[in-house]
């Protein structure tokens, strides 16, 4: 089968693409050109490819085995939420926030300063790539902390960490979770820090670092910010709005989730 090259992005008369300069101003898909009124073949396929990657990020199961191998013998615990499968997970966010009964029974109470949870969320690819490197970076930064074994959670939402931390007796939880993929980035990870978490804990009690991926916030920078937040949380005995207010500007996360009017449940 011969591979037919797609037509290059230029005008009908073959003139160079005058949109090139304007495209440096925005990542928006501007100046696409037309076939009649419709989009050109190359643009339709480019869009479909990006959408396919985003969907695969949502639907590919977290490869727990590969993560265990990457941990190379470092102890960890595997749990799952009450959402039995992906379809249930997407329809029932409430089930993704609670531990399956056998997972809850399996967790034993201890004396921990913090537990790190790696959960698939809406992009297993993000967690697969980003969670263990961040966990290792935090181990290096948190000398003297009693760090619980890493918990790997499937079909998990952010609030699942609350129940995990309660069951393990951890003073705070760091939830590392795949963010909802966009067309341009499908492997972005978010991190949520919650002090003294409990089931039903409000989101206003959390601090968030978002946009952690290869072309976004680098792991080392995220780790530095997270370590600062955790030390402050330990001192102030809180997270959330109260901690954000106490942070000097330079240590604040870069506006991770702007207030978006269009999103009634941001």
């Amino acid at each position, binding site marked *: 089968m011969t591979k037919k090259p797609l037509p290059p992005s230029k005008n009908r008369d073959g003139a160079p693409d005058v949109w090139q300069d304007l495209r440096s101003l925005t990542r*928006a898909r501007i*100046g696409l050109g037309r076939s009649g009124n419709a989009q050109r073949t190359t643009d339709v396929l480019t869009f479909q490819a990006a959408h396919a990657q985003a969907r695969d990020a949502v639907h590919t199961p977290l490869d727990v085995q590969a993560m265990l191998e990457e941990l190379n013998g470092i102890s960890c615990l595997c749990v799952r939420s009450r959402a039995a499968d992906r379809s249930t997970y997407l329809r029932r966010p409430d089930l993704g926030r609670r531990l399956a009964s056998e997972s809850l029974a399996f967790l034993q109470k201890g004396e921990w300063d913090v537990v790190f949870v790696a959960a698939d969320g809406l992009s297993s690819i993000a967690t697969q790539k980003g969670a263990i490197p961040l966990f290792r970076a935090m181990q290096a930064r948190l000398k003297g902390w009693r760090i619980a074994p890493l918990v790997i959670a499937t079909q998990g939402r952010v609030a699942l960490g609350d129940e995990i931390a309660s069951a393990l007796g951890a003073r705070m939880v760091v939830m590392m979770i795949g963010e909802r993929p966009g067309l341009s980035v499908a492997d972005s990870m978010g991190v949520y820090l919650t002090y003294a978490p409990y089931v039903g804990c409000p989101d206003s009690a959390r601090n968030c670092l978002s946009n952690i991926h290869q072309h976004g916030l680098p792991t080392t920078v995220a780790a530095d910010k997270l370590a600062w937040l955790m030390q402050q949380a330990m001192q102030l005995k809180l997270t959330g709005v109260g901690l954000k207010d106490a942070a000097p500007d330079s240590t604040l996360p870069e*506006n991770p989730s702007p207030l978006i009017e269009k999103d009634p449940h941001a």
Partner: protein
Amino acid sequence: MGFQYSLGGERYVFDDLKALMAAASPVRSGDELAGLAATSDAQRIAARYALADVPLDLFVRTELIPYEADDVTRLIMDTHDRAAFVPFASMTVGDLRDWLLSHEATPVALTAAAPGFTPEMAAAVSKIMRNQDLMSVARKMRVVTRFRNTIGLEGCLASRLQPNHPTDDLKGIAASTLDGLLYGMGDAVIGINPATDSVANGLALLDMLDHARRRYDIPTQTCVLTHVTNTLEIMNKGGAVDLVFQSIAGTQKANEGFGVTLDILKEAHEAALSLKRGTVGDNVMYFETGQGAALSAEAHHGLDQQTVEARAYAVARAFRPLLVNTVVGFIGPEYLYDGKQIIRAGLEDHFCAKLLGVPMGCDACYTNHAEADQDDMDNLMVLLGAAGITFLIGVPGADDIMLNYQSLSFHDILTLRSMLNLRPAPEFAGWLEQMGLFDAQSGRMRELAPHQTRLAQLVG
């Protein structure tokens, strides 16, 4: 008061009107999440039979959310036009469906009837209507509004040009605006969702949009979709506010979740009217709504998501808006799971709003965790176009790089206008022709590069 119906030898009982309406609703994940959905297909149809027999008068006498507890209920009850309702007072929900579809229900008759209908009546009748019913009735109802152009005329399809940018970069936004204008977009509004929701930022964005509009004398309106309290402050500072935007929902508590009350909306409405910026009319409000908003704020009072959504249109119509659109599909699969549910919801929202006299448009859209794709949006836009939707939202290449979801592209709306022989708002269509962007002879938008037009300097 309970309801019952026997179907296939089984007797189905529904505790009250809320439960009956919820059970009669087409399948959607949000009602399942709320624990309100029918438990079987047969129960759903039994509920529809029972609902079809409910007298419309019962909706006037029943407070689905108590009058004392909810200002939206008070608004609905206090503004209900009893005289307009008289011809329908002895009808059932089933009778209303038959009348709406009848040839007696002309555009004039429907317009006269609109103040007599409540959102709950609209929601109820929609539940026993098929998709084609929702379309053919909506198509008959014209809601015409005006600011710098005329929106909602027969044979017209307006568009919102949405040039969002993840850091609100002015030149980036201008580049997307230029792109949209070359496709004939922007007659409903050129409207930005800001990444940063602040007064200073809103002022800067409005200033840029207003300069561009005046420079090229574009007969349209611009808007920064920031919180209404920010817009009030922007107006106080002398900002170029054409339209006041706000997201609204169907209960007082859900609106409080948006940080808005009816009094704040009234204050903003009056402030915008006093600016007298409209040239052909004074419809100065722009609202967004969407099924699931109330449930996600835990403010649905046990109502199914479509009924509570319809109540938002009572809020909208109280302020004579230029534009309203449902953001169907944006909220995610826990409320509308797939393309089928999104399409149905889009048609319901459009129908209910138009029945109540609200100028409804749609952001035909989806997120990447919903079971939907661009083919579903093609279907939805054609169905809405056939149903006479007031306007659709377009973003470059259908990819909103700030809000991270997919809507329609400028190409899509151009295609739809061509397929269904729909034109932009007349003042805007005249401007496109005068600017040489539209070729009246072929009836097409010319395919032009920026430097081949007078708009080339828009980006600066």
